[in-house]
């Protein structure tokens, strides 16, 4: 059809509407106009509305003094710092809870996912019970449950649970001794790096030998030995450059040491338990996706159980697991914004909460917040895409 209209100039005019290219053009122009028109309309409305009502706009507020306190800050922060700094503080708190949540949820999720496939009937049923319960209850409810029902049952500071080794648990949080690194600890760090390098070398040379000669020597025990002994030796040689800051009950609460606030605990527990249920399903389906023939072939080659898992099943399962796992990580990061419901000072709570309220600049602040999550998720997915390409099956 398209060819016809091109060849016959007389038809061209009358059948313009039938020209696929022209139609495509037209649609796109209309779409662009509609979208930009709509955006223009919105921006225009917002600007007129704000001007009419005397609302201040712009990002100047970021340098103004904030004047409010934040309960948990990873960087130095005082009330006299700027609103811009509250943004960073909130962002870091979000990153912290997401990072810890991802690690814990992955561990628990793999455990449950493998348990789901266990030959042990009871374990498999318990795992699927776990998955079915926690997957089907809203996360916000779980957060409330842990925070308002469970953690509220902890004792006040004066009757704290003494967990031994200087650790205490009470309604104000979980208090741990904090390591203080003294001069000379850099030697120990150096030794750890050295030990890691040595282990990598050991594993690599072992692999080369195996490829060359076929002789396989176990490397796990020697590696562990290197990892522990070298840093430990250095640690004692330079005179134990490490001391502990123990939390102590002073005044209203424990002071000093490392404290984990209950808001963080509740959020972390809820995020971990909820996301682990999803990760378990991802893991299960990933492992099930590796065909039985692969395991049978591994058995036929005489590989041991561990080798079969490590060399045959897991690498293939990972290929299936990675993309949905990425999605779960992103979900966890986004879900961490529910922190605002229990007062954990994450980005949404501090910046789109308190800062927004003190400055009243909703549009700027909401868009900055959305921008952060958008960037985080685009970053993660591009990282995972890169990894995915690396492990993808090379078809020959």
């Amino acid at each position: 059809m398209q060819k016809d209209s091109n060849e016959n100039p007389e038809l061209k005019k009358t059948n313009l509407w039938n020209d696929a290219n022209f139609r495509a053009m037209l649609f796109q122009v209309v779409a662009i106009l509609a979208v930009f028109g709509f955006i223009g309309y919105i921006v225009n409305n917002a600007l007129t509305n704000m001007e009419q009502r005397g609302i201040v706009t712009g990002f100047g507020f970021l340098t103004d003094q904030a004047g409010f306190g934040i309960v948990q800050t990873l960087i130095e922060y005082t009330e006299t710092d700027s609103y811009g700094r509250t943004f960073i503080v909130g962002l870091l708190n979000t990153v912290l809870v997401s990072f810890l949540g991802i690690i814990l949820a992955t561990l628990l999720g793999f455990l449950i996912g493998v348990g789901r496939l266990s030959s042990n009937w009871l374990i498999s049923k318990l795992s699927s019970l776990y998955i079915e319960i926690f997957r089907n209850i809203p996360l916000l409810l779980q957060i409330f449950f842990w925070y308002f029902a469970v953690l509220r049952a902890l004792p006040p500071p004066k009757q704290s649970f003494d967990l031994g080794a200087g650790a205490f648990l009470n309604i104000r949080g979980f208090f741990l001794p904090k390591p203080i690194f003294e001069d000379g600890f850099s030697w120990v760090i150096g030794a750890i790096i050295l030990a890691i390098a040595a282990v990598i070398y050991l594993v690599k040379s072992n692999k080369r030998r195996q490829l060359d000669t076929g002789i396989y020597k176990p490397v796990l025990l020697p590696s562990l030995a290197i990892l522990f002994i070298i840093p430990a030796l250095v640690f004692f040689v330079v005179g134990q450059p490490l001391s502990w800051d123990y939390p102590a009950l002073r005044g209203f609460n424990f002071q000093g040491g490392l404290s984990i606030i209950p808001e963080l605990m509740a959020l972390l527990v809820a995020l971990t338990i909820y996301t682990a249920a999803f990760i378990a399903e991802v893991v299960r389906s990933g492992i099930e996706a590796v065909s039985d023939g692969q395991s049978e072939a591994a058995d036929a080659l005489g590989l041991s159980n561990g080798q079969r898992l490590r060399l045959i099943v897991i690498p293939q399962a990972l290929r299936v697991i990675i993309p949905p796992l990425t999605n779960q990580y992103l979900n966890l990061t986004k879900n961490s914004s529910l922190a605002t419901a229990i007062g954990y000072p994450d980005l949404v709570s501090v910046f789109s909460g308190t800062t927004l309220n003190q400055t009243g600049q909703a549009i700027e602040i909401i868009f900055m917040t959305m921008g952060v999550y958008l960037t985080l998720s685009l970053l993660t997915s591009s990282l995972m895409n890169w990894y995915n390409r690396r492990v993808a099956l090379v078809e020959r």
Partner: protein
Amino acid sequence: MGKVHVPKPSLPPPSNSIGAIAWAKKHLFSTPLNSVLTIIGMYLVVTMGYWTINWAFINADWVGDSREACTSSGACWVFVSARFNQFIYGFYPESEIWRVNLMFAIFTVLLLALVIEKTPKKPWIAAFTLVVFPIIAFFLLYGDAFGLERVETHKWGGLMLTLVLAVVGIVASLPIGVLLALGRRSNMPIIKNLCVVYIEFWRGVPLITVLFMASVMLPLFMHAGAETDKLIRAMIGIVLFQAAYMAEVVRGGLQAIPKGQFEAADALGLNYPKTMGLIILPQALKLMTPGIVNTFIALFKDTSLVLIIGLFDLLAIVQSALADPKWLGYSVEGYVFVAFMFWIFCFGMSKYSQHLEKKLNTGHR
């Protein structure tokens, strides 16, 4: 006559390879590690099960209308039963509750008709559910027509509001999702990119920021004087957000349609709308049903976030009841009740979606 050889009946298998013992041996105690795990698991099941049953049933109080009725050591379900109506209907006027019930009844009948496999004229019922039913439901709930008294949306709450939000979210986002998915697969670069940007934007941000935007910023974006209800704005936010997820489900469905179908449609000389409307979408929609049900489950759980913008859904209304000085200290009961309600819905739907998946799988492979 030779002697006929009559074989003796075979011996029964050894007693340790049949029956419960053999089963247990194979499934619970096959290796030492498994035995240890089984014992730990059994211990957990027995202690926790015992405690739970004791707390929730045996030692629980069920009847009464104030906290004085709760005398035993277990759960105080009186808290839930005393406020049950509020948890289900919110602040909906008592004399008008029959309207909500009628709406639920119609919805249940329609759903049953759709779920049961042998119902005749399913497509028509589906169309009715998606197009006509929302209108009926709106007039039933909101009123202000046909002699029904108007019930302002700020009186809506509880389970009813949760269901309304979830159903509206899914029904309204489906057509937008289909358009977005078609756009994303389109050959026109600008359309395609616009759709990709839309989808990735909404999928990249948390629902809570979307709700916040919808709740407090949407009116700034609109014409001065244009007024919308808080509930409507929350719905707009949810639909915009959900459409992006729906688009990805639809895209999955479209991708599952073999290329031959497109080519066959081209060969028949069908144009794009006809190809999509008559050949591709009917098949794809069938394939998508499990995916749609799954996003519905996710949305159903996510509706609980509206409590952060001050709407009283099931979770929010229970949460606020917990602050009542007359009922302090029964938060566990409240949360367990909400969890149970959500769980019933979500679990039921996920089972249905798994069943569908199985059915569709056999048909296609």
